[in-house]
């Protein structure tokens, strides 16, 4: 962690100047005055350097966060601004659409290990220098830089009734599938597309983790005759525990907060509201239904969900690693 750990430029540097100054200049009084002014200004330096950033963050991130929690306790429409207690939250949990959104969050949590294992396994093979590993590395990373909007629109074409995927199905004798039109299928398709679009990010993170791995340990395991699966299980996974933890948390955050573009373009929450996620619900309530207070309540719930899931993950993984 980068941290302002080491000591004190302010004092030591000023002290250095005090020693050197008197010898050179004729007017010590005036000099002392400038120096004082200068030291005063220098004391302010870190605050001046930080002020614009802090101003932006406080006004446009911290303040809205507090405002939002407060806002979720007031009414919408005619009751705009009047406190209504927890009634927004009650309404929220009675809304079947929000229920679906939360159920889909649970589904994402269940699918999370798969979304982490895919880039992890691919990174392992690349690290073990599969033929063509450089090519794979740069190709796999490419979709990660594309916008969800681009990815979503392209997949709309690919998954269309007469698109390439169904054409391939037809060629091998399978019936065509309405990929985005069936309630049971659509959410899995969207998640799969999300994984396709983002696994490159985790792949690169894994590869940087491999760079810190102790190669002596690998060589030792190899010369002891360990097979590749054994090496992965006993050397690589324990050695990468911090990286794996990081990828778990970032993948989860990614799934909860960056699928809006895909949902917006591919399913618009449908069919039958089956692909709702909290972020999409918030957007609909705010933008389409004109229910900002209800949307704020959903925001607060999303924030709590992320907090709980994130902390639980870290706790679980820590315990898992210790038992290794």
């Amino acid at each position, binding site marked *: *962690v*980068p*941290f*302002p*750990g080491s*000591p*004190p*430029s302010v004092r030591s*540097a000023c002290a250095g*100047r005090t020693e050197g100054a008197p010898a050179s200049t004729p007017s010590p009084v005036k000099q002392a005055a400038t120096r004082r002014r200068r030291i005063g*200004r*220098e004391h302010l*330096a*870190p*605050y001046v*350097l*930080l002020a*614009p*950033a*802090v101003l*932006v*963050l406080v006004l*446009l*991130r911290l*303040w809205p*966060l507090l*405002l939002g929690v407060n806002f979720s306790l007031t009414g919408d429409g005619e009751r705009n601004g009047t406190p209504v207690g927890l009634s927004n939250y009650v309404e929220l949990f009675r809304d079947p659409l929000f229920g679906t959104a939360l159920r889909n969050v649970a589904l994402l949590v269940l699918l999370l290990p798969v979304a982490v294992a895919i880039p992890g396994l691919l990174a392992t*093979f690349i690290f073990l220098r*599969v*033929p*063509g590993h450089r090519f*794979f590395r740069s190709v796999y*990373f*490419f*979709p990660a*830089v*594309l*916008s969800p*909007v*681009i990815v979503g629109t*392209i*997949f*709309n*074409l*690919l998954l269309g009734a007469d698109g*390439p995927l169904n054409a391939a199905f037809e060629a091998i004798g399978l019936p065509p599938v309405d990929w985005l039109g069936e309630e049971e299928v659509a959410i899995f398709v969207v998640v799969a597309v999300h994984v396709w679009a983002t696994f490159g990010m985790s792949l690169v*993170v894994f*590869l940087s983790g491999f760079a*810190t791995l102790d190669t002596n340990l690998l060589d030792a395991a190899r010369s002891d005759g360990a097979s590749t699966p054994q090496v992965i299980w006993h050397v690589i996974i324990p050695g990468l525990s911090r990286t794996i933890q*990081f990828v778990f948390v*970032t993948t989860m955050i990614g799934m909860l907060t960056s699928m809006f*573009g895909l949902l*917006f373009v591919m399913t618009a929450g449908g069919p039958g509201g089956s692909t709702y996620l909290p*972020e999409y619900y918030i*957007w609909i309530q*705010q*933008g389409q239904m004109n229910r*900002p207070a209800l949307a*704020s309540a959903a*925001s607060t719930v999303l924030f709590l969900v992320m907090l709980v899931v994130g902390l639980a993950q870290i706790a679980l993984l820590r315990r898992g690693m210790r038992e290794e």
Partner: protein
Amino acid sequence: MMRGVRTSRWLIAIPMTVLALATIYPMLFTTNVAMKTQREYILDRFSPSRSVQWDNVTTAWTNGGMAQYFINSLVVVGVAVVLLLLLGSMAGFALSHIRFRGSRALFLGCLAALFVPFQVIMVPLVRTMADAGLVDTYPGLVLAYVAQFLPFTIYLMASYYSGVPREIIDAARIDGSSFYGVYRRIMVPLGVPALLSTGILDALFCWNDVLIALLMMPSPEHRTLMVGVTSLRGQYSNDIPAFSAGVLIAAVPVLLVYLIFQRQIADAVTAGATKG
């Protein structure tokens, strides 16, 4: 034994190649469709386009309004990235090399801000912006982007600067340089690699965003490129080649940036992981 390892490596390379093709194919398919005439597309959408023709691109660019969206995106992203790098490097320098009252608290505050997603604050943020008269204006969208990606930028710059040896700064200080002088004459030039990779990643984030732009820019002439792509779908629902050309226009700048700056992007992505 050696031989067994070799063969199994080639066996693994086969599914990996298939996956690589699956990664490239969607882009190739879209490019190919964008080069077809509508008639060609209806008759056969898969075969390689018989001639490379740019009519669809021109249509999307002019009639589809992509030109305007492109300029909007370029301006907003450009200004936002410059501001992000300026504020981020100033704050990153102060947090990594100057010890002062409250530095630890401020650093932790920035770190915490990283974990507050936009969805959580979007309703009150847009309301605050509307109260300030900033909704549907360029400065408003720029500010929203700066606020969104600043914690990340500060974090990356601070972790890069913490690797700059303290002696360099102390030496400049003894020579009579103020902190501002150190920032301008030492930290900015030394920080160029980090500024480049962080800036590229910030630019990609802003360029690819759709949610913030949708909320902040309701009127059609202010649309960014990604919002433009979503509106193009309705406009050209019957002319898929022209629509594909529009998608291509939005994707090509990203593709170019990726091809040129692949290493820097990967560096920025991993800097967050290894140092954290």
